[in-house]
């Protein structure tokens, strides 16, 4: 074999499996989805010609009955739920990460396990557990009724609130773990430096600690926001008809009332929002990392 051929063969052997994988499971399905989204739906729920943008009009809420806000609401609700889950997990994960990272070394592994173990159980089981906690007649629901947050005899489940709880509970470990990794290797000398340079209280945290946790925070946001946005099981089990999220809407189009072009269009819209979110996120990440002199 001549050297060039050998080099080519080596290259093919090393990147071949990866390229094949990406082609088969990312590129082709994506292409298929892109094509499907622009096809018509036959009366039997089969994708068919001609090419049309009807599916996208349907996503925007237009049908032969006129316009309805339903789909837009679902998209908005999904975005909001992802946002809630992200903020709530950040709020919970910061103290947790510090608590674990500052614990004596021999206890850290155990504390981390406490965070991780729940995510080893099946999502469905976890969702059912939350049903038990939030159902009508449970202490929490009673409390909500007593406080006047709920009408008599109602439960916290099913509701958008229950979906939020489920999402936060599900994705908390994915925020805690990367944050913990950042906090654990925190350079405390920067805290000394900030204090020495006249920072006090929260300004020590903001300038001495927070910037160092940004890599973990950013990783956590990606790990929580994207799956929350596309959540399926949690809203299906814990939400009612008024808590449907994108994942449920898409699933519906494949099963009960087949409409593949519509669901493909929904999926593309969802991808679009995810990408938009990632672009915004990158901007923010760059700002955080570049540490513009005045973050706030």
């Amino acid at each position, binding site marked *: 074999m001549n050297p060039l051929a050998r080099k080519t063969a080596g290259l093919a052997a090393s990147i071949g499996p990866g390229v094949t994988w990406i082609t088969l499971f990312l590129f082709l399905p994506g292409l298929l989805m892109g094509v499907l989204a622009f096809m018509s739906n036959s009366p039997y729920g089969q994708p068919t010609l001609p090419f049309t943008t009807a599916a996208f009009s349907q996503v925007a809420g237009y049908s032969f009955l006129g316009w309805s806000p339903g789909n837009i609401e679902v998209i908005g609700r999904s975005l909001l739920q992802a946002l809630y889950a992200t903020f709530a997990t950040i709020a919970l994960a910061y103290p947790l990460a510090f608590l674990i990272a500052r614990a004596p070394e021999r206890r850290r592994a155990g504390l981390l396990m406490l965070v991780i173990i729940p995510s080893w159980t099946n999502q469905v089981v976890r969702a059912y557990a939350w049903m038990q906690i939030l159902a009508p007649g449970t202490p929490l629901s009673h409390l909500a009724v007593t406080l006047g947050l709920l009408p008599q005899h109602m439960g916290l489940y099913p509701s958008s609130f229950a979906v939020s709880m489920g999402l936060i509970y599900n994705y908390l470990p994915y925020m805690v773990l990367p944050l913990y990794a950042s906090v654990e290797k925190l*350079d405390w*000398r*920067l805290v*000394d*430096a*900030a*204090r*020495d*340079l*006249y*920072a*006090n209280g929260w*300004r020590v945290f903001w*300038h*001495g600690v927070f*910037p*160092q946790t*940004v890599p973990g925070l950013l990783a956590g946001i990606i790990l929580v926001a994207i799956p929350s946005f596309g959540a399926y099981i949690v809203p299906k089990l814990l939400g009612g008809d008024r808590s449907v999220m994108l994942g449920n809407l898409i699933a519906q189009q494949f099963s009960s009332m087949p409409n593949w072009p519509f669901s493909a269009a929904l999926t593309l819209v969802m991808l679009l929002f995810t990408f938009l979110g990632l672009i915004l996120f990158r901007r923010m990440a760059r700002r*955080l*990392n*570049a*540490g513009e*002199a005045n973050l706030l």
Partner: protein
Amino acid sequence: MQRVGLEIVGITKSYGDQPALRGVDLDVQAGEFFTLLGPSGCGKTTLLRIVAGLEQPDSGHINIGDREVTHEPAHTRRVNTVFQSYALFPHLNVADNVGFGLRMLRVNKAERQRRVAEMLEFMHIAALAERRAEQLSGGQQQRVALARALVNEPDILLLDEPLSALDAKLRGDLQLELKRTQRRLGTTFILVTHDQHEALTLSDRIAVMHEGRVEQIGAPAELYETPRTPYVADFLGLSNCLKVLSADGRKVETPVGSLLLTSEGAVGAQLMIRPERLKLEPEPRPEYNHFDATVRERIYLGSSIRYTLDIAGQSMSAIVAHEGHGRPLPEEGERVLAQVHPSDVVQLAAE
């Protein structure tokens, strides 16, 4: 700039049952370059952190100028630190690192920018203003750290082994620069180091610390020439120590023979002779103490030669300047006459 001194009185500090400082008293004069010298674990860094307000002492108090600051937190003390690893903020560029303290002091933006620009100019790092901390070399980081502290015009500047992360050549250059900076600004500098050469080069006065106590305070020459204890003698350079076996006025007996001192000898005391004060010359000099010695080892050090001598079974070091021409220097195995002037024999306090 107003010059401010420091007074440290009876400071103690323990970590658990490990005492770090066992009662330290120090006075640092306004405008002085003062050094805390000692091996790692002697408490020097702990003391510096207590002055900075980053640690609380268990007892004792600290005055900066005529104000007691013992219980003041770090951020209200007009004291800034250059940390050992510089601890620059990696997410900020050089100018923002330097301007950090002024920003925390809520100095308005225009003045802040002016003072930062001035300080960058002063430290010759104006060209680096936009660089991120991690893009700088060790020497540049050191300058930025110094600028970041000095721009706040602190009463006292604390330096925690600021040069230990640099290579020898650069360290030498920056030492001189540090000394000049201190002279020009007239700010009180307190340096922590384990490097005796650095301490001798830079300091107006040095406090040698040992196991949480100050062993001796004095000007570099004073500490080097007349150390009070074997520990100080040993820490500041090489030394030959001899025990006084018996004394008759200024004449004492030691394991290497009899010696004449400039003061009365005390039985049991240690005598210390710096290796470079031991002359190896064939003709006996008048008034000198003489010993017959055999050269055991000869090590070439460039500008000088270090000898290990055997004098009456005792091992002693001598360092002889290498003059390049003139008399040939003794070789290994040669018998020589070792001589020392009585004033170069220092009597230490018995340990």
